[in-house]
Each structure stands twice: as C-alpha cells, then as structure tokens.
C-alpha cells in the first residue's frame, strides 16, 4: 500500500504517538516551568494590578508588547492554558496504555522461563527432598514474601514469581491524581468567587452581590448564588509590641443566618479564618471609622461612621505614621457641602512629629482629632472616598477633637448646651463623638478544596512506592538429582539491582531450608520489602 498522501487517520495517529512520548511530556513540562518563570518576573494583574499599571507607565513600549503577549496575566493567558491542556492530554495519552498494561499484568500469571540459568542472578542448591516437596517449599517462601507465584502449566516442577507491581500502581496513582487536581481546580474556581468586605464595628454585613466592596472575582460558572449570611462585627482589635511589630489582628464577629439569627460567634484572625455556609472568611485589613455627626440648628442631618483610608507611606516612613482620609457629603444642604477630613488617631504622635519632624507610628488611638476642610457647591461624584472640588468653593478649615463640636462656618468650638440661635442662615455644626474601627474581610468560596486536597494526598501516596519499590522476578526449577533434588533459582530486579543481590541470596537460602521443612512447622522470617 504505497501512498505518498498522508491520510487523516495517519496524521491523527502521528499526533497521538507524539503526545504519547515521554519527550513531548517533558518538553511541555519544561515550557510550563518557563512560562512560570516569566510569570514570576513580570508583575501579574491578578496579584498586583497597581504594579502592572506602574510598569506600563514606566515602559510604555515594552509594556504594550507584554500586554499583547499576555505576560501581565501569564496564568490566565491562552498559551498557558494551551500548554497545560496539551500536557494533560499527553499525560492521559501516556497513562491509558500504561494502565491497560498494568491491569493485563495483574491478571496474568507470571510467565515461565525457558532458560533459567541465563538470568543476571542464578544459583543452584542440592537438597535432600524430592522435587515436588522442594518446589512446594519454594512456593511457600515466595508467597510469604508477597511474590505472585505461578506453577508451571505443563506439570513440571517449576515456578515463576513476580513482585513489585506496587511501583507501577503508585506511579499511575501519582499521575492520575493530577487529573483529579485539575478537575478540583476547574470545579472549585469555576463555581467559586472571592471578594472583599468592609464591616464597621457595630454594623452587620449581609452576603449579597451589592454589599461587596468593589468587584468580586467570580469563576466562569458562578451563578450568583449568594447566601444571605450575615457577619456582625462586635469589635476589632489590633495589638502591637513596643517596637511597632504587629502582634495580633482579630475581628470578633457574630455569624448570622439569612434570617439574622445568631449561628455562632467567631474570632477571625490572620491564619485563623471562620467558615459558614461554604464561605471562608479571612482577616484581610483594617482601618479607622470615625463617627461624624452634622447638625443643622441642632437637628441631625448626618450621623454615620465613615470608613477612612490611608495613602501609601513614602520610603522610610512607617505606614502607621500616615494620617487617614475620608469624605463627608451633605447633599441636602443648600448649597451642597463636601467636607474633606484628615484623621490623626494619636494626637501625641502628631505633636511629636511636629516637634521633631520625624514620623511616628500611631499604633493606638489617643485623643484623636480630625482636620477638616469644607467645600461648597455642587456634589458631582458619587464616590464615598473622594471629593471632586473642581466646581466647588473652598470654605472653612478647622479642627475637631474627639467628643467636641465645632461650628462649620466659623471653625470655632461650640460649648456644650449652648442653644442654637435662630439666626439666618441656619447654623451647621460638626461633632466627632466616637472613633470606631472597621475590618476588611476577604470572603471566598471554593467547593473544590476537598477534592484538591484528596488528590494531593493521593499524589503523595502514589509517589512513595513509585520511587522506592522495585520490580523483581524469580524463577525456580527443581530437577531430580539422585535421591534428592537440584534446586535451580534465577532472577533479576528491574530497579535497585544491588540490593536485590542480597535479597536473592537470602531467598535461595530460605528455599533450600524450606525444601526439607514440613509445611506446618516452618517458621520463616519475613524480610522487609
């Protein structure tokens, strides 16, 4: 059948043969490693988006090229997925025939040898028993050592024995378990999500799409099944050593069911998450949330704790030395008001910084105060954290300490109990009655975790026999020799050949002894594997 045209069937067979080869698998593994190297050197979007943006600003040309090549998201890029897919196809292509072959070997009886004295190891012993008894003794010895033994089918006094299928079983288990890992990852990441949550002390957060802070990162098959579970933050504590080294961050929470009933209390720390309804809740961050009250002629128009954030500290300045920023928007006043607030949780640190010029970390609240700047005009952006002052007029600036009240128009403190005067325009005051903290929690769901864990355990279980056991084969033949028997034993090991030489010698000794001993009385020491 000479044909210069390559048929589809032939080319498919070629592709399959290529995928089956160990070389292909090794090359794909190497490519996976190289792709990972690239991913560890170039900043990655899912891990550190701000570094990617900085990189693109610093190197516009290279950055654009990298972006085109998917180097900013190596592990999500089409070529990484392609390499991984090909690797696993190649893995399956390797594993299927090996698994079939293993099942065949396990079903088959060990095959008799034609020539016994040609093996790498060979010994002869003369024993007084007759061939049938000698072969029975050898069979017992081999079986006790967990060899699979087959008698000669033609009725000759001969045995074929094998041991060490565990090596291949372990190796196959190890490799198949990786497919299980992939299945677990696809299922878990595909149906799961992860998001950030901000809860202020004394407040309750409910698991629903709108309540997450920013975007949630959801898998491809995520169907929006939020649980309605609640997290009530009773309190947050951050503790430090005198050196400023953090000691503990803990959120004391009540976990609530969708009806708002307490399920249980939990302390969420770094490394100590809580879980409820398949959600994992992790301590992620924290910050200050001062309660700010604004009154118009004594009537409350705003009384909310506001979440404040920090700017990133410049080089050499401890992050905790930075002040905190927040914005209060009053859309109901005329004209509308926006107030920029700057919180200093520790006034001692502020004073010290003024005197020495050295930034001081504020690791706990002590007589906190806020600086404020009022802007009048139109509130144009909806953000809770920023204020667009471009169309606003700057107004009063001032300071409000914890527990005090300040007139927003004059910036002067208001004495407690001072009756609001009825002068027009109406009088606005700002008060800072309380300083709370907020906790940033990461909420994520991954239903694949148990599956991946199981697969990882299988990987380990398979690895040990695959590396440390060896396949051994032994053949025995008993031939009459005068009144006794000449016992011929041949064998070899596929791995660990040097060790097998000793084992083989012991095996032959045991066989020679067992040839004479009656079956019931024999006490054999079973050698370790």
């Amino acid at each position, binding site marked *: 059948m000479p044909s210069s045209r390559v048929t589809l069937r032939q080319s498919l067979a070629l592709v399959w043969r290529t995928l089956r080869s160990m070389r292909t698998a090794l090359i794909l593994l190497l490519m996976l490693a190289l792709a990972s190297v690239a991913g560890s050197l170039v900043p990655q979007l899912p*891990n550190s988006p701000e570094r990617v943006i900085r990189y693109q600003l610093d190197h516009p040309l290279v950055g654009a090229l990298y972006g085109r090549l998917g180097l900013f998201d190596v592990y999500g890029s089409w070529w990484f997925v392609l390499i991984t897919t090909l690797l696993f196809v190649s893995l399956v292509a390797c594993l299927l025939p090996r698994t079939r072959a293993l099942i065949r070997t396990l079903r088959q009886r060990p095959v008799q040898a034609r020539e016994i004295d040609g093996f790498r190891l060979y010994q002869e012993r003369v024993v007084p028993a007759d061939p049938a008894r000698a072969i029975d003794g050898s069979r017992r010895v081999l079986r006790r050592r967990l060899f699979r033994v087959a008698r000669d089918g033609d009725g000759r006094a001969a045995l074929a024995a094998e041991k060490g299928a565990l090596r291949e079983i372990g190796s196959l288990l190890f490799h198949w378990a990786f497919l299980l890992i992939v299945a677990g990852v696809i299922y878990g990441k595909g149906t799961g999500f992860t998001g950030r949550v901000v809860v202020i002390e004394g407040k309750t957060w409910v698991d629903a799409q709108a309540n997450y802070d920013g975007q949630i990162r959801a898998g491809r098959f995520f169907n929006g099944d939020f649980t309605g579970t609640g997290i009530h933050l009773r309190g947050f504590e951050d503790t430090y050593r005198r050196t400023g080294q953090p000691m503990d961050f803990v959120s004391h929470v009540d976990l609530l069911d969708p009806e708002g009933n307490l399920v249980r209390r939990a302390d969420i720390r770094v490394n100590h998450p809580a879980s409820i309804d398949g959600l994992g809740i992790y301590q992620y961050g924290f910050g200050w949330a001062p309660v700010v009250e604004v009154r118009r002629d004594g009537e409350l128009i705003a009384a909310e704790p506001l979440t404040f954030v920090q700017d990133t500290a410049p080089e050499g300045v401890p992050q905790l030395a930075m002040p905190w920023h927040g914005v209060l928007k009053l859309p109901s006043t005329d004209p509308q008001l926006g107030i920029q607030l700057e919180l200093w949780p520790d006034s001692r640190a502020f004073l010290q910084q003024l005197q020495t010029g050295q930034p001081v970390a504020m690791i706990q609240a002590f007589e906190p105060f806020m600086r404020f700047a009022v802007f009048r005009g139109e509130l144009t952006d909806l953000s809770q954290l920023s204020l667009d002052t471009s169309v606003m007029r700057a107004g009063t600036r001032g300071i409000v300490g914890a527990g005090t009240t300040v007139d927003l128009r004059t910036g002067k403190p208001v004495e407690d109990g001072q009756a609001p005067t009825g002068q027009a325009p109406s009088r606005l005051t700002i008060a800072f009655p309380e300083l709370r903290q907020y906790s940033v929690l*990461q909420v994520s769901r991954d239903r694949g975790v148990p599956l991946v864990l199981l697969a990882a355990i299988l990987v380990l279980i398979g690895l040990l026999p695959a*590396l440390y056991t060896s396949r051994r084969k032994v053949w025995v033949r008993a031939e009459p020799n005068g009144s006794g028997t000449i016992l011929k034993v041949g064998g070899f090991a596929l791995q660990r050949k040097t060790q097998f030489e000793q084992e083989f010698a012991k095996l032959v000794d045991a066989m020679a002894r067992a040839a004479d001993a009656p079956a019931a009385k024999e006490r054999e020491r079973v050698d370790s594997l």
Partner: protein
Amino acid sequence: MTDLQWGRLSNDAFNVALFAYVAAMVGYFAYLAFRRDTLWLLARTVALVGLGANVVAVVSRAFAAHRVPWGNMYEYSILLALLVVAGYLLIVEGFYKVRTLGGFALMFAVFTMAIAVSFLYVDPLPLVPALNSYWIKIHVVAAISGSSLFALGGGVLTTLFLIQDRRERRQLAVLRSQDPPPIMGGSLDMDAPPDFAADADEPPAVSGVRRGFLPAAATLDVMAYRVIAFAFPIWTFAVIAGAIWAQEAWGRYWGWDPKETWSFITWVIYAGYLHARSTSGWKGRPAAAVALVGFVSLLITYYVVNLWIVGLHSYAGI
C-alpha cells in the same frame, strides 16, 4: 535565663558552629590531600562539635523568641546548614561509607551561614501574625528538609560527579589511545520492557580507570539520584503543606505568588529529572545538568524570591 541571654547564647553557639565548620572543612580537604585516618577522625570530630553548636544555636534561638526557630531567613539558613551537615554525616558517611565529600558539604554549610550572618541577621523576635500558624511547623520543616537534601543531591553531589566524570573521561581517553577499547558487557535483562530503561539507579560497568580521591563518577551519579529521589516526596509534601497553609491564611491554596511559583518550578525540574532518569534512561552528564538547573532554581526560590521579588512571602522579611 532571660530572652536576651538566650539570644546571646544562640549567637555565640552560631559563631562556634561556623568556626568549627570552617575548621572541619579544612580538615576534610587535608584528609583528601594526605589520606591520613587521623585527619579524617579529627575533621569528623570537629564537624560533630560544630553540629552540636549548630543545634544549640537553633534551640536557644527558639527560647529567645518563644516560637519555632524558623521565622526568618537567618534562622532558616542556620537550620539549612544544620540539616545539610547532619544529612552528609548520616547519609554519605553513615550509609555510603564515603569519607571524601565532607569538605564540600561543609563548604555549602559555611557559605549558607556566612551569608546568613552577614546579610540576613535579625534579632530574635516573636512571629508576625501572618506567620503565626501551626502550619509553620509542618510546612517549613518539610521545605527546609527538602531543600537541604536537594542542595546535597542536586548541588554538592552532582557537582562532584561532574568533576569526577571529567577526570575519568580524560583518563579513559588516554587509556583508549594506548590500548584497544575495553569490551563493555551487555545487559542480560531479557524481560525489561522497552520503555523502561530499568537501571536508572545502578552504576554502569566498571570503567577501570584510576579514580583519585573521589568515589567513582558512576557511584556519585547514583548517590545524587538517590538523594534527589529521597528529597522529591518531601518537597512535594512541603508544597502541599504550603498550599494548605495558604488556603487557611489567604483563602486560596494556590495564587501564583513568586514563592509558590518558584517552588513549583523547582518541583517541575526535579520531576523532569526523575522521569528522564527512570523512564528515558538518562544518566550521567545530561541528568546532572538537569539536577544543577534544579539546584539553581532552588537557590532562586530561597534567596532571590525572598530578597528581590515582591510577593506575599515578603512579609517574612529576611
């Protein structure tokens, strides 16, 4: 004793260990040169003293900081040195009865400790919350045992193999130019499956050349393979334990953080090494090249990732 005294004790013991290791290294190299048993005995004794001091340095560090003594790179380094020296004394001298490699194993320990004390030293402090987990005991112990064994197998033994192999090749070339080539024996393994070049862990036929002070290249090759095969499951376990810890700390078991990525790359390289050896029948120089690449990757995982690449493991500082 107060924490401060424990800390001082640890630093003193560190110095004793470092000096003892340097002395033992010199002793082992002197043994190579002069082949006096007394020299070996002396070097070994000094190495054991160093090992004892190293243990004290690690343990007193734990008392000083009230926690497991592997919370930062300095501590990790002295533990790594300890395990490489202990691994050498146990495996190479105890199991293989090879005495000539001590200088090289100690050299690795000396370098690791010298780098630790010059660049990585920090005072003993309690753990930051991010590291405060019982998984630090499991994950770090596995990682450190795995990497010290990889350093011994993929670094020290492989380098020595390459040196010895080069030497034997040269001698063989000289022999060949004088005599007709020696006849090599074929394998008698009739039943070996064709895809299974089954003697990955066996030395090949004796080459009949003068070996010099090192064990035969083939023996070194097999030793390196065995140590790497021993290290691989431990490293696998370390990566898995790290993933479990990551799940608990960050809510995801794998996030391609640089440390995770590089430990994975190291794992992939040594997985490739084991495959190449056991199923494709690579041995000798090509296998050694893969082992060395793995060793470089291990060094990157340890030093470069911690010190130069920003990632989640950076909080541990140095």
